[in-house]
């Protein structure tokens, strides 16, 4: 912990000492996980589990981005965000199953590409709309209210989303068409890696990379960063605060929608209460990476994916949520700023 003082001031995200420390921590975590995996499972199994962990991690990372962006900009834990992911999964399965009438895998590659693009576009735009609507009616009026009020509202929104979905789709699992063929695998030695996993990981990485570019390079991204840093000062500089916050919700919800699509392709089912657990894990990921920091959220998502898959591989499936929660508490006790500290909201 002696290397820590350099990271204790907000501007240290760019300080070399802090960066080296963070990289070392990351490296240690990765090497540790890899060592445990290879010694326990053997190399082939380890590769398969690695891909599995990255796939799951990609989904958590996409959800975690929404938490971290909203927290960065208005300091609200959006409890309904996990449910936005769940709604996204249902929008995507409705689009594929009910609107397009698909059931199984589509092996025609050009058609598959068109379908995937259409599903992502449809789900993400619907979710963006839902997110902005919720922000407008549930959170915006409470922007100056005591902290407890928007938190409780978020819980209320979470209930509403869950129960509306339950009313429409019933309390059981609904099948989501797995249009991406399971049978496509790449053989690496004795290990087989599903093409779907590679697709999911690439989608997540591309989305995260675009988000980084958007936040870092565009005018709106700069507006978001300045709003996160100091809302009043940003307003004085001519930033349209309401629009910026709405866009934050729009992007976060669209990403949750993308996570929902990807989840449907991977697991083929969705249930009205899927969002609760996923949301808790994604939030842990956001805190782990450093809440307010978009890169951190992505990193945290992958780490949570590793932890969960690791627990499953070692036969502790039922303890998965407990382990993730343990991680959350440990992070909060020893490093509440998260692995990468604050970057988007350099306030705390």
């Amino acid at each position: 912990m002696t290397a820590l003082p350099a990271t204790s001031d907000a501007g240290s995200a760019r300080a070399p000492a802090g960066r080296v420390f963070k990289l070392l921590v990351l490296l240690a975590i990765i090497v540790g996980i890899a060592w445990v995996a290879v010694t326990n499972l053997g190399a082939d199994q380890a590769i398969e589990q690695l891909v599995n962990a990255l796939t799951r991690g990609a989904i958590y990372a996409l959800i975690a981005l929404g938490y971290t962006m909203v927290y960065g900009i208005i300091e609200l834990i959006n409890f309904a965000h996990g449910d936005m992911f769940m709604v996204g999964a249902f929008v995507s399965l409705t689009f594929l199953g009910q609107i397009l009438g698909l059931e199984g895998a589509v092996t025609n590659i050009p058609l598959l590409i068109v379908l995937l693009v259409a599903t992502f576009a449809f789900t993400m735009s619907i979710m963006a709309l839902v997110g902005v609507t919720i922000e407008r009616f549930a959170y915006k009026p409470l922007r100056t209210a005591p902290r407890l009020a928007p938190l409780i509202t978020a819980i209320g929104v979470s209930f509403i989303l869950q129960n509306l979905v339950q009313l429409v789709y019933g309390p059981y699992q609904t099948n989501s068409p797995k249009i991406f063929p399971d049978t496509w695998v790449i053989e690496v030695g004795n290990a087989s890696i599903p093409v779907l996993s590679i697709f999911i990981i690439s989608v997540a990485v591309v989305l995260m990379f675009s988000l980084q570019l958007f936040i870092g390079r565009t005018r709106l991204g700069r507006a978001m960063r300045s709003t996160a840093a100091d809302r009043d000062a940003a307003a004085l500089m001519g930033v349209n605060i309401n629009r910026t916050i709405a866009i934050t919700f729009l992007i976060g919800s669209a990403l949750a929608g993308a996570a929902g699509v990807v989840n449907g392709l991977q697991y083929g089912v969705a249930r009205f209460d899927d969002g609760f657990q996923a949301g808790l894990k994604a939030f842990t990921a956001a805190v782990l990476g450093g809440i307010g920091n978009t890169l951190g959220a992505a990193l945290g998502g992958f780490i949570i994916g590793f932890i969960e898959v690791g627990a499953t591989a070692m036969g502790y499936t039922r303890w998965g949520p407990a382990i993730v929660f343990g991680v959350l508490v440990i992070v909060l006790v020893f490093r509440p700023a998260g692995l990468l500290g604050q970057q988007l909201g350099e306030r705390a």
Partner: protein
Amino acid sequence: MSVVTDLTPQAAGGGRKRALQKTASKHHSWTIVVGMAIVGTLLAVLAYIPPFTLAQPSNAWIDGFTNAGVFVMLALGLNLVVGIAGLLDLGYAAFFAIGAYTYAYVASPFGNSIIGIPIVESLGSNVGGLVFWPMLLVGALVAATFGILLGAPTLRLRGDYLAIVTLGFGEIVPIVFLNSDAVTNGTNGIGGLLRPALPGMGSFSAINPWPYYVTMLVLVTVIMILCYRLVESRLGRAWEAIREDELAAAATGINTVTTKLLAFALGASTAGIAGVFNASKLVTVSPDQFTFIVSFTVLAMVVLGGMGNFWGVAVGAFTIYTINNVLLKTLNEFFDRVSMPILKDINFIELQFLLYGLALVAMMLLRPEGLFPNSRRQRELHTEMDEPGADELMGGDHELEQEDMR
């Protein structure tokens, strides 16, 4: 935090004030006792007259009121944490579970075999049931201990983190009880708990709901009195100060971490008491009794009733419980019987959470102080919402602690 102070009410010149307070509290205590006696009698009478007897038999009403009383206890305890101290606890059911399992270990054959003391076997139900009374305190203590263990690391951080950590804790505790089969009997839970007993009266019976009803009334009364006395104490004022402005509270010499921890522990201990009572009534404990649904239901009760106002919260809890378990059920049966189209297909009990959600959002937007507000809380909520610059205060007020933690 560098600001340290003791909480003992020994401020100079406090003697006269304390004397004043003492009379005020005494007055309050008697109001509560009389009030609860009236409410208790009134409810008992209602259970025996139509139209209530048409919906369900009188004994079922009394039993239902007792169950509602459990939620009133929970809501009173959570009100201490959320309403008075302003800490959002989303895993309150965990402490309820801990209280219940604590009783199960002492008062069931399975639990006794785990702890290695054959209480049930050696004492029998009539004498063994006496253990219920001291167990109320033990359950409270155990729950409070867990509250401190959970709160100590997290209460130093800003309030939002507490919400998510308690949410996680509330999720984990049932999982632990579910998965540790050897110690907790897993999904099936622990059954065959002793019912409470009184000397001369013997064990409470499963058919007669009255002893439980009266016990519930006494417990609610005691908890209510304790709550009021706490809030009127120096500690209670410290809680309210922290809720309204933590930075200012710290500046006036309140040790915010200790004070918040006490609120958290006392709230947890109330849930522990409710847990012991509920376990002794159901004579079985299992992980599925303590899901997050319980936590959120209690939170909705506190918010709708009026955060900070104990009577309001109690009324809120009682009303919501009765609506859920009597009105919605009756509506279901009614529409099934008359077989109205559409309406008969709707499961009103499933709608419960949709209604909670709508109510929570509507409440926060339109009347954040709840149906029966605490006057100070109401003023606080409304002035802050009307003041344009008030958000700065809220945004920045917890920065100090986080910086200290790193």
